[in-house]
C-alpha cells in the first residue's frame, strides 16, 4: 500500500495545547480547580451536584461462580462472584448459615492502590458492606440451613474492582446484591449414614432474597456543597462522605459516614436522605431487574 507517512508540521494544534494546560492546572492545583467548577454550580465532568453517573448491571456471565454480576457506575467497574461452600454451623446458632462479603481494591484498578494486603480503605468498605448486607437482611441466614446443627451453606460474596473512578461503595453494594439475586444453589440433602452433605448437579434453586437495598453516597465539599457519586478526582478533596441505604420499598435502612470530616449539620443529612429517595424513585428502584 502507499507509504503510511504524513508530512504534517510538528506543532500540535492549539486546542490540544489548551487541553494540556487545563490538565496541568488540575494536576498542580486540584482543589482550586474543583472550586472554580463548583462556583459555577457544575462539576469537572459536567454533572450537576446531585447527578449520578450512568449505571449498567450484567449478571450471570461467570460460570465458575454460583452467581455473579458486573456493575459499571460511570467508569467505576466492580465484578462480584458468589461461591457457595458447606460448613458446620456455630454451636449457638445451629440453623444459621454464613454470608461473607469482601471487597478487594487491587493495584489493577487505580494508580492509588499498590499491591499488598487490603488497605484501610478496602477494610472499612468491606466492613460497611457487611453491615448493610446483614442489617438489611438481603439473605436471611436461616434460609441457608441444610441440616440443623450439621450442615449450612456459606456464601462467599467476593467483589473485585477492575477500574476505580470513585464511589466504590455504591457500585459494590449493587454488584453484591445483584450477584446474590443471580445465585442458584444446588439442591442439598444431608446423608445421615455417610455423615455428609450430597448435592445435585442438575437441580439448582435460586437463593431466597429478603431485601434489595440500594445505596446513595454523597461527598461534602467545603463544608456546604453536596456532591453526589464522587469521582476519584473529587474524593481526596472532600471533607467526608455520607452514604444512605434505601430498601426496595423506598424505606430508609441506614445512614453511614465514611471519612473523618465534620458532616456539618442536620440539614445536610436530610438533604442526603431526600436526594436518595428521589434517585430511587426516578429509576434506581428497578436497577435489579425483574428476573
Amino acid at each position: 500500500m502507499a507509504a503510511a507517512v504524513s508530512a504534517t508540521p510538528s506543532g500540535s494544534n492549539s486546542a490540544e495545547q489548551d487541553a494540556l494546560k487545563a490538565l496541568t492546572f488540575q494536576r498542580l492545583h486540584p482543589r482550586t480547580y474543583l472550586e472554580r467548577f463548583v462556583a459555577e454550580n457544575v462539576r469537572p465532568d459536567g454533572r450537576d451536584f446531585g447527578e449520578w453517573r450512568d449505571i449498567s448491571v450484567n449478571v450471570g456471565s461467570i460460570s465458575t461462580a454460583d452467581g455473579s454480576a458486573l456493575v459499571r457506575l460511570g467508569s467505576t467497574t466492580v465484578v462480584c462472584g458468589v461461591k457457595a461452600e458447606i460448613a458446620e454451623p456455630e454451636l449457638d446458632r445451629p440453623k444459621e448459615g454464613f454470608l461473607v462479603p469482601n471487597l478487594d481494591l487491587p493495584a489493577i484498578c487505580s494508580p492509588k492502590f499498590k499491591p499488598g494486603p487490603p488497605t484501610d480503605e478496602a477494610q472499612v468498605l468491606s466492613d460497611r458492606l457487611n453491615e448493610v448486607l446483614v442489617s438489611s437482611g438481603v439473605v436471611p441466614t436461616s434460609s441457608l440451613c441444610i441440616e440443623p446443627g450439621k450442615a449450612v451453606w456459606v456464601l462467599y460474596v467476593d467483589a473485585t474492582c477492575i477500574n476505580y473512578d470513585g464511589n466504590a461503595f455504591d457500585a459494590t453494594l449493587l454488584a453484591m446484591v445483584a450477584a446474590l439475586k443471580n445465585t442458584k444453589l444446588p439442591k442439598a440433602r444431608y446423608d445421615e449414614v455417610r455423615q455428609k452433605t450430597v448435592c445435585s448437579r442438575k437441580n439448582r434453586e435460586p437463593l431466597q432474597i429478603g431485601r434489595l437495598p440500594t445505596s446513595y453516597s454523597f461527598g461534602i465539599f467545603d463544608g456546604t456543597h453536596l456532591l453526589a457519586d464522587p469521582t476519584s478526582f473529587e474524593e481526596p478533596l472532600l471533607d467526608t462522605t455520607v452514604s444512605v441505604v434505601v430498601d426496595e420499598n423506598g424505606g430508609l435502612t441506614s445512614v453511614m459516614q465514611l471519612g473523618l470530616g465534620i458532616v456539618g449539620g442536620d440539614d445536610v443529612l436530610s438533604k442526603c436522605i431526600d436526594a436518595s429517595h428521589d434517585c430511587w424513585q426516578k429509576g434506581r428502584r428497578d436497577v435489579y431487574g425483574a428476573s
Partner: protein
Amino acid sequence: MAQSNFDRRRINGPEESFLPIFDSDEEEETRWKPGNPRIGRGARDIRPIFLKAGLINQANGSAYIETEKTKIACAVYGPRQSKSTTYNEKGRLNVEVKFAPFSCTRRRVPIRDAEDRSVAVQIQQALVPAVRLELLPKSTIDIFITIIENDGMEGCIASGSVAASAALADAGIEMLGLVASCSAAVVGKEIWLDPTEEEGKVSSGTLILAGMPALETITSVWQSGSMTPTDAIKCMEACQERYMDIHAVAAQALLQNAQNT
C-alpha cells in the same frame, strides 16, 4: 479440601468450609473417553477470542480478553520511578497476577500463592524480549492481571500474555512487536490446541508458545507434563500456525481503539 485462614483484614467466614460434593453422575454419558474425537471443536481449533483495549481508564494502558470461559483483565501502569537502591540502565517489567476468588472451580483465598507467581513469571518471560526496556532507564513498568474466570491454566497464561502485550501497546510503551501466544495439549495420539481445564486434565502434557509473529521470533516456550520430543515440536508448529490469527485479533482491537480516540 478445607480452607482455614483467619485474616484480620477481611470479613471471615467459619474456620472450615468445603466444596459441595455432587451425586455421582448425571454426567457420565457426556464425558470424553480416550479414543473419541474432541468434543465441541476440531483438534486444531482455538476458542474464539474477544479482545478490547482501553477499558480501564485509570491505567496508562489496558486490555480485556475473553475466550469462552476464560476472562482476563490487564492494566499497565508506568513507566514509574523504580523503587530500587541500585541504578538500572534498563527498565524493569514487573508482572503481577491475581485470580479472583470466584474464578476457579474451587474458591481461591485472596492471599497470593506460588501459582499466581508462576503464572506471572511465564507471562513476564513471554513479554520481556518484546519491550524496548533500554529506552526506560530507572523506570519500572507494572503490569497487573486479574483473572476473572479461569478455564484452563495454559489458556490463562497464553491469553494473559496477549492481553498484556495489547495493554503495553495501548500504554504507548515502545515494543519491537506485538506478542501472541498459543497453548497446546497432547491427548492420546492427537495434538489439541487451546485446551480447556477439562481437556488439560485428560492430557499427558501441555505446551505454551509465545512470540512476535511480525518478526518471526519466539520469545518463550513452556512445556509441562510428559511428551515425546517429536510431539513437543508438533505442538510448537501447531501453535505457530495459529498464533498469527491471534496476533490479527489483537492488532484489529488496537487499531479500532486508536481510531476511536
